[in-house]
């Protein structure tokens, strides 16, 4: 028995197919709310692009002050695609996960089955990836309708956006598992996510930021996601730059999952 035990019991094993069950659970819940989700998934990008890209763009384009004289709509469309995915990833990793850990007892119930804490982490991360994919594809449709991309490579901005979403979701899930109340999220969003949305090169080039703030922008995952998606969408791809951006995001995802494995076990297995 001990011998067999040693062979099959690998608490360090990364994933089990059981994490797919968690994804199934989330999809089952999603079946009820998909309509309003798709509706806001289409209307939000549309409204933002029309207001900021076209409306505000009228005043920006007048001066032609963007690098290469790019139209403002084309400039912000890929950035908004990525920031929307970031917002979704960050949000889903905060309150809903907190609910499953504490208020609803969903994880407690699941842990009474053969599932492990790591299965829960990976399953719900996959779920967040799924939602981000859905939102990004809808956003891409809006971009296509408004003609807001210069290159067909914009299609590849979708996986970049999903990777960005995961780069926020994974560390935030790890953080959520360390919190006993949701009040920490407030500071996280107000002082983390919102400033990133506003200052990571989404609405204006980071060269317009004060000099001392620029390096700060480089180390944020959102900046890399925005830069990668924008280069694809504008058809101005630099292979080296793109590789750096993608690797930076991938590193954050891996680090986030590693941290999450520790915090999830610490929180749920007591």
């Amino acid at each position: 028995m001990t011998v067999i035990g040693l062979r099959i019991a690998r608490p360090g094993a990364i994933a089990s197919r059981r994490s797919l069950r968690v994804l199934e659970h989330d999809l089952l819940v999603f079946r009820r709310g998909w309509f309003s989700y798709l509706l806001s998934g289409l209307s939000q990008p549309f409204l933002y692009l029309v207001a900021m890209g076209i409306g505000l763009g009228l005043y920006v384009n007048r001066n032609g002050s963007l690098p290469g004289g790019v139209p403002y709509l084309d400039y912000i469309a890929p950035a908004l695609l990525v920031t929307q995915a970031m917002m979704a990833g960050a949000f889903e990793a905060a309150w809903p996960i907190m609910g499953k850990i504490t208020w609803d007892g969903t994880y407690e119930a699941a842990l009474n089955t053969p599932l492990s804490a790591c299965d829960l982490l990976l399953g719900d991360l996959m779920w967040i990836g799924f939602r981000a994919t859905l939102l990004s594809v809808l956003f891409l449709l809006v971009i296509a309708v408004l003609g807001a991309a210069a290159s067909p490579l914009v299609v590849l901005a979708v996986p970049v956006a999903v990777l960005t979403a995961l780069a926020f979701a994974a560390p935030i899930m790890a953080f959520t598992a360390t919190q006993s109340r949701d009040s920490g999220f407030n500071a996280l969003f107000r002082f983390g996510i919102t400033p990133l949305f506003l200052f990571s090169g989404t609405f204006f080039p980071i060269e317009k930021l004060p000099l001392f703030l620029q390096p700060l922008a480089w180390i944020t995952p959102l900046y890399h996601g925005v830069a990668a998606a924008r280069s694809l969408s504008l058809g101005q791809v630099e292979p080296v730059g793109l590789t750096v951006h993608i690797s930076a995001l991938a590193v954050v995802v891996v680090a986030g999952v590693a941290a999450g494995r520790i915090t999830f076990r610490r929180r749920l297995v007591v």
Partner: protein
Amino acid sequence: MPETAPATAPLIHARGLRKCFGAFTAVDGVDFDVAPGEAFGFLGPNGAGKTSTMRMIGTVSPVTSGTLTVFGLDPARHGAKIRTRLGVVPQADTLDNELSVLENLLIYGRYFDLSWAESRRRAIELLEFVQLTDRANDKVEPLSGGMKRRLVIARSLINEPSLLLLDEPTTGLDPQARHLLWDRLYRLKQRGVTLCLTTHYMDEAEQLCDRLVVMDRAKIVAEGSPRQLIEKYVTKEVLELRFPRAEGEADDSAHLDGQLDGLAERIEQLPDRVLVYTADGEAAVATAFERGLRPASVLVRRSTLEDVFLRLTGRSLIE
């Protein structure tokens, strides 16, 4: 311990089992065995360590020290394997309010690697068993407490477990709901499912448990069948006497000093009544009247586990 040890290999085996949370010891070196087919109870006040023990058996809480095996397996290494054969009814309902009654069972079956078809087949059968068939497609939230509890029990049976862990299964339910639940649990026991439950209801323990342990302050303080415990720790009958309050006295029975001495082996004076523990209640009443006592009310009753419980864990509130 030796004379109560079951003949067959125990389903749960614990020796010197401890659980600490930092400096706090929730379970302090307990020994017990649960035999296949048995209904075993943990009885104790809040905070006695019942739930911590259950969570260790359920393999969701690591053992701090001591020995614990479930189905002969070590929870630390075979957690998933043990849980495959385990049904758990946690203290809180932990149902998914966003899913329907049926869906709650379906997805739980998936967690046990059942196919959708098999999961559905069992779910429909179990809804029948817990009398929730007509609510199958309703949301969970509007269900009554008793219905939710029945649904959680159905959920815990989706993997056809051979051992069912129930943490305070009927707390907060009305009498009808409790009796319905007891009935279902009794049927499960007849089918050979081993039951392991915690409760602080004495009637529940007497109804359901073949054998039980009384826990208090992280330790087991008594063990046996309900009858054995009553015989060991209290007398067969209890006589309850109430006296009219004399002028200017705080307690109703304060003026009795000494008059009851020798009436029985144990007498307990409470602020509102006197409990006389005796083998023959009627005889004690007669003696009391012979001594000229004139109680306002007299009640002779059989001893219950409640008397055992209060004897062992005291009357003061623990929380």
